[in-house]
């Protein structure tokens, strides 16, 4: 790990996305949770944003002056946990 990495504040633990990167994206006009996810993959990793989503929302609120209430949640879809695909086998088609 390099020295600069160590001094970074990581927001998305899965995809290694830093606070500085998120602030930069917001400045570029990516001002929703979804837009930041698309731009930086924050929240797109294995945990699907379950750990960082609130942190990202807070940074957006802070940077854009919006209230937390105004920051839209992305669509919630199944699965809420990783589901091994073999579990779908043997179903009636």
């Amino acid at each position, binding site marked *: 790990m390099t020295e600069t990495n160590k001094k970074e504040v990581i927001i998305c*633990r*899965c995809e*290694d996305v830093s606070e500085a990167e998120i602030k930069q994206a917001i400045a570029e006009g990516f001002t929703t949770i979804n837009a930041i996810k698309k731009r930086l993959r924050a929240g797109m990793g*294995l945990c699907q944003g*379950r*750990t960082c989503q609130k942190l990202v929302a807070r940074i957006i609120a802070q940077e854009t002056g919006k209230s937390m209430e105004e920051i839209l949640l992305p669509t919630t879809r199944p699965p809420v*946990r990783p589901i091994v695909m073999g579990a779908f086998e043997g179903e009636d088609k």
Partner: protein
Amino acid sequence: MNILDHPILGKVEAAKRKVTLFVNGRSIEAYEGQPIAAALMAVGIKSFRQTARKQQDRGIFCGIGRCTDCMMTVNGEPNVRTCVTPVAEGMIVETQIGLGSWREIPHE
């Protein structure tokens, strides 16, 4: 460190069965039923993987299978959430580097 005695929960059952697993080649003992992460914690292993993008160490964070930070390669299979996967006799546990690697492309 295993907590063998506890003021409220009492002593760990002496009869509890132990299993042996191999962590990056080193053999360690664990109680049957314990998650892999707990077995590693008990012997002081904290770094479980290295991230793909910035090569940072990661370990246990949420402890309940939600954050996926504790994943390792187990028996050759990457992305195993060690905090919710119980140990088994002879299990091979490896630090996951980035996305991990296949020993060979799985076929069947």
